[in-house]
């Protein structure tokens, strides 16, 4: 072990964090309108499946990503209808949706691709890896940021985009208003339900992209349960970042770096279990420094405790 971090490790972190970041950004849309969305895991999984299905059907990467988004939007619509219209408890609905996503993707994997476990096709191409020309000149950045898919770039752009949306746009301002005080929002004539629907669908869009990045960007295949808990980590990143785009970027990266560090430590004599714990322990420690803001309690805990 020459050094704990090297550039290829950090390059890998930038990539590995992307689906988590995208899902967290999506989750924040829901949190911001007062809906605690625990279904991120399931939504990303559906997105990952949709992307592979789309690619297999059309052979066109752009269409594949669109199909990924479309299938997650459908799922989100179900979530929205059940929580907003049928007034189901959002956590029960979210957990059920996670089960549904796991069952349905496995079932479709079997019926559509006639395989179990994983679908993999040598002929299939994943999202292209881009080397941005202007970065090629700079030695360190080149290694750090080269060879990422457009979705990776997009995710980092979305951080800025979502920031502008929340804090600078009219629509974002209204969305935040609905989350802060739905009764007041209703009384001034905002269409609260419509905005909540829009937020959940927006979350679906992000999760669709997260799924596509996972199954077409990180790898080019779909395997059962391939989200492997990333949706829950996204949930943590979302809460830790207080649904603030920059905060969520920071907390996702924190998690990513700690994960990377834990990979490095695996070679040393520390038992694997403890190195794997590292990202979680560090996130808990980080929470001592980023105290929670009150709105979180309103979205998650209180509304569901009833």
């Amino acid at each position, binding site marked *: 072990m020459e050094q704990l971090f090297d550039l290829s490790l950090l390059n890998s972190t930038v990539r590995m964090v992307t689906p988590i970041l995208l899902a967290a950004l999506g989750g924040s849309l829901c949190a911001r309108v007062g809906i605690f969305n625990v279904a991120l895991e399931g939504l990303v999984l559906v997105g990952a499946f949709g992307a592979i299905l789309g690619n297999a059907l059309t052979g066109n990467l752009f269409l594949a990503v669109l199909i990924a988004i479309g299938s997650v939007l459908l799922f989100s619509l*179900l979530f929205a209808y*059940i929580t907003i*219209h*049928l*007034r*189901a*408890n959002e*956590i*029960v*609905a979210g*957990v*059920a*949706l*996670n*089960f*549904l996503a*796991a*069952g*349905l993707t*496995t*079932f479709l994997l*079997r019926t559509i691709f006639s395989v179990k476990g994983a679908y993999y096709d040598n002929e299939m191409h994943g999202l292209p890896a881009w080397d941005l020309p202007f970065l090629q000149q700079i030695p360190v950045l080149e290694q750090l940021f080269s060879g990422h898919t457009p979705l990776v770039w997009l995710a980092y752009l979305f951080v800025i985009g979502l920031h502008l949306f929340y804090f600078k746009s009219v629509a974002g301002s209204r969305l935040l208003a609905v989350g802060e005080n739905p009764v007041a929002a209703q009384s001034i004539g905002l269409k609260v339900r419509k905005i909540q629907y829009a937020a959940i669908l927006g979350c679906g869009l992000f999760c669709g992209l997260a799924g596509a990045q996972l199954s077409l960007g990180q790898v080019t295949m779909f395997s059962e349960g391939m989200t492997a808990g990333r949706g*829950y980590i996204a*949930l*943590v990143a979302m*809460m*830790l970042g207080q649904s603030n785009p920059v905060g969520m970027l920071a907390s996702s990266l924190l998690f990513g770096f700690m994960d990377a560090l834990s990979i490095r430590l695996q070679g040393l004599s520390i*038992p694997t*279990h*403890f190195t*794997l*714990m590292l990202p*979680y*322990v560090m*996130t*808990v420690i980080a*929470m*001592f420094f980023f*105290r*929670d803001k009150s709105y*979180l*309690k309103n979205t*998650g*805990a*209180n509304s*569901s*405790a*009833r």
Partner: protein
Amino acid sequence: MKQWKQTLSSLIHPLIALLIGFLAGAIAISVTGTPILQAYQEMWTGAFGNLYFLTSTLARSTPIILLGLGISLAFRSGYFNLGAEGQMVLGAVAAALTALYMPGSGIVKLLAAMAAGMIAGGLWSLLAAWMDAKFKVNLLISTLLLNYIASLFAGYLVTEPFKDTTGSAALAQSRMIEQGAWLPKLFAGMSLHAGFVLAVVIAILLTLLLRYTVFGYELKITGQNPLFAAYGGVNRTRVMILCMLTSGALAGLAGTVEVLGSQYRYIDGSLTAPGYAWTGLMATLLANSNPLGTTIAAVFLAALQTGAMGLERNTNVPLEISSVIQAALILFISARFTYSFLKRRKEEKNNGATV
């Protein structure tokens, strides 16, 4: 007469939701080409068909009930405990190790293991509560994160220092506990064990606690309005600590009875893979944190799972589809569309009949 009508109308809600859930399930089944009625019949048989299936359903519901009760207790006092999984795992591993290494007769081991399991779960939960109370570390996130840490730690214990070296030694698991320390089975040859009785008794005790005791009253009020509780002289810290401790202890007990009543050892991952904690959470939420309601909801959710296994065994419906049906049923049962409507009407009645 009116009373009777009201009860009836409040029953309509879950019935309609159930119907829609079953319809959604029917669509999924018809995709596989199995006759819908037969499929549902198989599900019913798999869950309740005879004593054997009934008892396996109840056995399966046992950890879910205990987890659900723990979560509901925390809810009632205003805390959202997402850490039941970690508390359960630590409880399980603590119970297993205690039963293995505690000197004494079987019954001593058994009791010590139960105590150890509850203490381990309770302390783990208390850690999160303490961080929240003292340092304002959001409970929702910390409990979620502590789950991973607990599972990895328990995994470490049975991979390294306490791993099972007998048998094939392939799995991360502890040695098997001696038979004297097992929780007795309720029926010979069936999986239902005394843990179920324990769970039901605890559900009843919690109901009584909430309804009839000073502490239960203070707990409820703290959950409903902590400021009001403080104003009334309730020691909120004490209530919180006791509730989170008990909540975690019940989760720990869930793991303990799985170990002592059914697996007889701690097997890494065997408690997390079935998603008991999430199911327990659903049971609590479906029942609005009512202990007896949580118990019933837990049995229902367990029945969906065992029913789905029956469906898979006896028809061409693949396992995945049965999980789709499960999810569809839960989704629609959680829907409260008729409920909110009825709730409105009930309140109007209350107001209308003012003294």
